[in-house]
């Protein structure tokens, strides 16, 4: 058996269905074998497209995404996608071809030290220098990517390892198993948490992507039902619990829902699970909730006390933690009296609803709200990066499991289109909606070919405001309206562009047209691109200016005509 055959067999045995990739000289041997196997290969049009597609696939299925690329430029084209998966803790295995063993280190044709390049943006990067080690490295790579806090792993394989043969039954497959989270002290921490919850008058549950990685939906639902605690999420936590659940206040952070941010600012106990207290949530970490008791639960000990100091750090998987807490509550028949707190929150919601002006021009929020109404909460929603991303987080209520795909940590423009491809392969029976901007979509526009080739039923909403909206907004608010390089004075005709790829294209220009065209798009089989000509001057509110606390939101509040600080 040769190395390529072993690698393909390995992924088959792991139950991998799709490989997202792009061929080249140093993986030609691998592709020769791949073409004769049961694995299905999705040919992207750029390696960045392949890696984001693998990432999107992983997010909607919970299974690791796998992508292949050739050496040198193929491998370096993966870099953004790997960093993206790293910051959002997405399990991903990237296989790159490398120049032959004898050519390494000589600046050979298409040689790049991809292991060195990716070391800081992976859980681990490997280079296989001995074919005998291939089984152990692959097994370990799989294990590292999928256990504990998930993340990307890269395995760089010189071309002669693919073509070399060895009796793999005689090689070692043993791997060092990774250290799980420490269990000592857990019980003590759990009882401290139970005590803190009991004492709290204004407890708040904050959920991050860790809940989803831990598949803790059921435990979470039970916990929220039992305690009646109000819930906020981070961007990555959106979708962990259905938005229609009356306990859910929505997303917190720089563009969070006002009531959610105010609740965050007013709580006396913050129970934060699977979050990493990013600066988009905390503002200046030193000022973040300094008189609130913070419980921080995460499977990765390095997250605890990294960005904010917490009174009760707990190293634990989210699901196991919630189960342990529920056991404690039930044993003590704990009851909760949160009426006063909930009515305070109710006041926040009444006084500071999320508003935008629906009249006159077509607003991006309106397109999103209407689409949500028509498509329903079970749609799989993918976003790109910018204002439209925040509008989706604010205005698209979600209710399915693993049905929100967005680039949270890295904020990668160009993620959306290829990620939607991965989502479409991962969830073939479901409605896949992509919301992108005229800036973001052009960063991986070539993937329209992949969509067309596979006839993927993705509904692509391009919210075209003829500008890089999010940056334009900052220039308006913080740089005296000096719009440096953010207004597109030239854009392609997106309708004809889609049609050139053989994709149905529709356009919405006026609010009155929206409903009809959205219905038409959703009822059309296969891919559809819907260009929405939206108001260029629309901004995302509220906004917490950089470094501000959760209560320092700027916005247009009820009954007011201009932007002001809350309160």
């Amino acid at each position, binding site marked *: 058996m040769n190395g390529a055959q072993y690698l393909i067999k390995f992924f088959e045995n792991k139950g991998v269905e799709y490989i997202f990739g792009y061929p080249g000289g140093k993986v030609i041997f691998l592709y020769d074998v791949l073409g004769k196997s049961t694995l299905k290969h999705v040919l992207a049009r750029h390696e960045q497209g392949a890696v984001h597609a693998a990432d999107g696939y992983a997010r909607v299925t919970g299974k690791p995404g796998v992508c292949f690329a050739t050496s040198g430029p193929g491998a370096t084209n993966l870099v953004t996608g790997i960093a993206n998966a790293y910051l959002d803790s997405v399990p991903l295995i990237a296989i790159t071809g490398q120049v032959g063993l004898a050519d390494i280190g000589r600046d050979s044709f298409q040689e790049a030290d991809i*292991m*060195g390049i990716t*070391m*800081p943006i992976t*859980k*681990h990067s490997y*280079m296989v220098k001995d074919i005998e080690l291939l089984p152990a490295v692959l097994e*370990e790579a799989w294990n*590292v990517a999928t256990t504990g806090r998930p993340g990307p792993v890269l395995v760089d394989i010189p071309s002669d390892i693919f073509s070399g043969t060895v009796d793999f039954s005689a090689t070692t497959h043993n791997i060092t198993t*990774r*250290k799980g989270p420490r269990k000592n002290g857990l019980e003590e921490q759990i009882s401290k948490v139970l005590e803190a919850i009991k004492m709290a008058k204004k407890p708040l549950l904050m959920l991050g992507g860790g809940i989803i990685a831990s598949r803790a939906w059921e435990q979470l639902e039970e916990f929220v039902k039992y305690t009646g605690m109000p819930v906020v999420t981070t961007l990555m936590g959106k979708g962990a619990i259905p938005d229609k659940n009356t306990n859910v206040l929505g997303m917190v952070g720089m563009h969070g829902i006002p009531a959610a941010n105010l609740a965050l600012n007013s709580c006396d106990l913050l129970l934060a699970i699977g979050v990493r207290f990013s600066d988009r949530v905390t503002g200046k970490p030193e000022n973040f909730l300094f008189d609130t008791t913070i419980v921080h639960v995460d499977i*990765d*000990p*390095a997250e605890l*006390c*990294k960005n904010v*100091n917490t009174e009760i750090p707990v190293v634990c998987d989210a699901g196991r933690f919630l189960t342990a807490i529920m056991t404690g509550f039930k044993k003590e028949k704990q009851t909760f009296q949160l009426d006063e707190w909930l009515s305070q929150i109710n006041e926040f919601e009444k006084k500071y609803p999320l508003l935008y002006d629906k009249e006159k021009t077509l607003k991006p929020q309106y397109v999103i709200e209407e689409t949500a109404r028509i498509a329903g909460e079970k749609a799989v929603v993918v976003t790109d990066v910018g204002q439209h991303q925040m509008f989706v987080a604010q205005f698209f209520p979600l209710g399915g499991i693993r049905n929100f795909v967005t680039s949270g940590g890295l904020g990668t423009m160009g993620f959306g289109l290829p990620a939607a491809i991965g989502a479409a392969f991962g969830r073939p029976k479901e409605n896949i909606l992509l919301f992108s901007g005229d800036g973001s979509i052009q960063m991986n526009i070539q993937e329209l070919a992949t969509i067309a080739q596979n006839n993927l039923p993705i509904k692509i909403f391009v919210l075209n405001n003829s500008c890089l909206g999010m940056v334009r907004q900052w220039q308006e608010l913080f740089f005296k309206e000096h719009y440096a390089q953010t207004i597109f004075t030239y854009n392609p005709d997106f309708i004809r562009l889609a049609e050139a790829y053989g994709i149905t294209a529709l356009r919405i220009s006026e609010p009155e047209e929206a409903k009809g065209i959205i219905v038409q798009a959703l009822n059309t089989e296969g891919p559809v691109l819907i260009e929405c000509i939206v108001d260029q001057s629309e901004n995302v509110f509220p906004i917490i200016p950089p470094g501000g606390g959760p209560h320092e939101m700027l916005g247009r509040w009820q009954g007011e005509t201009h932007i002001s600080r809350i309160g």
Partner: protein
Amino acid sequence: MRHTLAVLVENQPGVLSHVAGLFSRRGYNIDSLVVGETEDPGISRITLVVEGDEKVIEQVSKQLNKQVEVIKVNDITNEKIVERQLLLLKVAADTAIRMEIMQIVEIFRCRIVDIGKRSLIVEATGDEEKIEAIIRSLRPFGIQELVRTGKVAMVRGTK
């Protein structure tokens, strides 16, 4: 405050750059770093001296612990340890002052390992304090070249 960390790692190519990269990426400062094989050739030991408060050191240890090749991280700052650095120092030494230098070398119990026409090379091992003291004493004669290792350390056995 300066902390001494003893880090056991798998003896594999790339480990050192990985660990060093982690420090630069996360903005931690390394005062010194020494790496070498241990009694088990599959395992190397990195002795790191890091500047930082408790919070920084905790983060450093946790981040190190997350690395695949890292087997164990021990903060031995507050342990009873034996620590050593190695110093090689070339000092200007005309015949007239050779005796004087040799006396200093004697006092510090270090050695002269090379004698040139106009210079001597002094070799010394010891803890940081001793090494600093030797350098201070020889500086007036004119140090031509100086090289020293970072520190290696070992926790003392129980009595």
